[in-house]
């Protein structure tokens, strides 16, 4: 079972824990700023990057507005090519379908390439409960699986671990790892050997989906290691699990997004592999899966469609907003307590996660807008975060507090009442004990002492020009 870091904890407690770990904060600051720099460098190479981002935002809005028709076309095309399609309303339906496919085929060993959606729906837990052995094969994802931790970054899941942590984990995998050094090349070579065995023995391969193309019924996976090719080449059954929003209409749109995604994600002009899959193995082909299943998952996304937060469905999961975020850079992914972290995770949490603890994640932002600047599809994340805070405040705030804010707003809308209240506050403020303010206001900041001169207006009258 992947541990749940969210339930029963608070943002404050998780953040305090992260900030107390000096090696974690050091590695976070180093890698996030490095990756953020790579992104900016790679984007600046293209002469019309800004134009591409603006177009991508418009095109993603079109994709989402056309979602039912595009999904219908995708499903038809995938089936036309001999693949199976399942529409899953929620995590339970998606997991039950994959487990059924596995049981029907007598699957014992499943291999997976990295998929944040399968983290979201906890697919591994469902498969393991059905007695199926599941191995993550992305190097970073395998490392966190061995560590029994959730990923701390949507792209580089083991960003919070250091080489000696990984050495320790690998040494415990089996005897062959006993003499491993902590050199990254040696650790990676060990992973290659170990996981190669798993690829060859697996009878089910599970992937996510970076983009599906409705026009031809194609699932596109981008990767650098090649595990996503192994998973879709060797096992006789392939299941691709996609969030229903990860779709484009045609190859023109795919071309645009495939130029933006790797630059934003890792500062690459193209990933080592871009794998375009259209259905299962075709007649006359000698490898590739006999069965290809496409599981299209809603799991709360359709509620976003009908809300003011619809634009979050434009997200292409590049991770750029994590690397650039001043909060993520300090507390890392585990500070958020959920598989999606950073600004995108803070928006998605209250929309997709049922736990009440998820509703405070929009507070994990300075609203500086760096995420908006970094987003390759131009999502105004800070607007969405602010909207979610408003929604949560309206849900939570006692009527008396709302009334107090309204009274304040009314008073400060007129010069006379503004003057009266500020001068009263300046004169009387020094007598107010700090503890009188509501909980939370003075936890991390001191109450400023009132200006003994009676405030700016009084001073202006006295000393003015």
């Amino acid at each position: 079972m992947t541990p749940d870091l969210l339930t029963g904890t608070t943002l404050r407690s998780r953040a305090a824990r992260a900030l107390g770990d000096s090696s974690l904060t050091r590695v976070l600051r180093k890698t996030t700023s490095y990756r953020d720099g790579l992104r900016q460098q790679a984007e600046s190479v293209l002469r019309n990057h800004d134009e591409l981002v603006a177009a991508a935002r418009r095109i993603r809005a079109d994709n989402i507005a056309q979602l039912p028709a595009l999904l219908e076309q995708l499903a038809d095309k995938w089936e036309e090519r001999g693949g199976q399609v399942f529409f899953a309303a929620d995590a339970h339906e998606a997991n039950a379908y994959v487990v059924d496919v596995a049981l029907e085929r007598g699957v014992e060993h499943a291999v997976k390439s990295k998929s944040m959606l399968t983290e979201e729906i906890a697919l591994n837990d469902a498969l393991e409960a059905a007695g199926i052995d599941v191995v993550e094969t992305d190097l970073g994802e395998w490392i966190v699986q061995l560590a029994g931790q959730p990923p701390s970054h949507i792209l580089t899941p083991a960003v919070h671990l250091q080489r000696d942590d990984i050495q320790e984990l690998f040494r415990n995998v089996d005897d062959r790892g006993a003499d491993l050094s902590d050199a990254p090349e040696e650790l990676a070579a060990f992973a290659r050997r170990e996981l190669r065995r798993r690829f060859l023995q697996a009878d089910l391969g599970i992937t996510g989906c970076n983009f599906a193309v409705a026009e031809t019924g194609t699932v596109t996976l981008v990767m650098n290691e090649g595990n996503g090719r192994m998973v879709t080449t060797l096992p006789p059954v392939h299941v691709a699990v996609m969030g229903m929003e990860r779709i484009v209409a045609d190859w023109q749109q795919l071309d645009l997004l495939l130029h933006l995604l790797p630059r934003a994600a890792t500062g690459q002009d193209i990933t080592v592999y871009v794998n375009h899959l259209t259905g299962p193995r075709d007649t006359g082909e000698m490898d590739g899966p006999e069965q290809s299943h496409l599981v299209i998952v809603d799991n709360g996304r359709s509620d976003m469609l009908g809300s003011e937060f619809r634009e979050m469905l434009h997200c292409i999961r590049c991770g750029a907003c994590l690397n650039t975020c001043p909060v993520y850079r300090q507390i890392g992914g585990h500070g958020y307590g959920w598989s999606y972290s950073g600004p995108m995770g803070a928006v998605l949490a209250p929309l997709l996660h049922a736990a009440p603890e998820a509703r405070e994640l929009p507070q994990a932002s300075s609203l500086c807008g760096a995420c908006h600047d970094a987003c390759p599809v131009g999502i105004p994340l800070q607007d969405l975060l602010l909207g979610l805070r408003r929604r949560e405040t309206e849900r939570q705030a006692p009527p008396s507090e709302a009334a107090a804010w309204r009274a304040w707003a009314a008073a400060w809308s007129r010069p006379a009442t503004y003057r009266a209240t500020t001068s009263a506050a300046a004169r009387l403020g020094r007598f107010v004990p700090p503890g009188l303010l509501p909980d939370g206001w003075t936890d991390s900041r001191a109450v400023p002492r009132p200006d003994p001169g009676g405030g700016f207006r009084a001073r202006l009258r006295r000393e003015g020009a």
Partner: protein
Amino acid sequence: MERDVFLENLRRKLASAPSTPSAHPLPSGTGVPAVRWPEDDRPPVDQFLSAVAEHGGGARVIRSRDELAQFASDVIDEHGISTVVATTEPVIEELAGVLVQRGVELREFDGPSSAAADLGITGAMAGIARTGTVVVDGSAGRSPSLLPEVHLVLVAASDIVETPAEVWRTLPDRFDGRLPSQVVLVTGPSKSADIEGVLTVGVHGPRAVWIGVLTD
């Protein structure tokens, strides 16, 4: 869930969305703009050769059968190759002679188990000059370009286009709308930076990629 029920729910939600004024309204416009790369006046093959090197691969222009044999021979020496798997394309058959002469075992690809060789040789339907990418049609075999530690791939100089857009935007037309079950773009050897961001090569896919660019 039934497809129709799923999609009907989406239609209903879409119709019920509030029109909230946004501080960042959506941009207007139509179409998909072309990606503008920096100016580069060099011929595509020259761009291709330097991009391959930048991405950690090796590439050589091949002008004759002898040069092709020499190229294969050099790769065999460099990596101490003793078994080779090849997809059956005409240009690859030309290599059979040199391989046999070098005492290397050559297998014709007939399924994943045959692909467990030291070297995999495949063709490519296109190359991309800007990124040093080869485009491999998986219908000739997905594993020969994936399982071996070394991948040798042959691409015709006349099939090298300048930008990725010339592949992605034309892919459906190249196959009359019916794509092979797999098309994969390969740019250099397999890489990972999952351990402390340190670049490691050959994590799952080939550790080395050699590209022969065949001129007429």
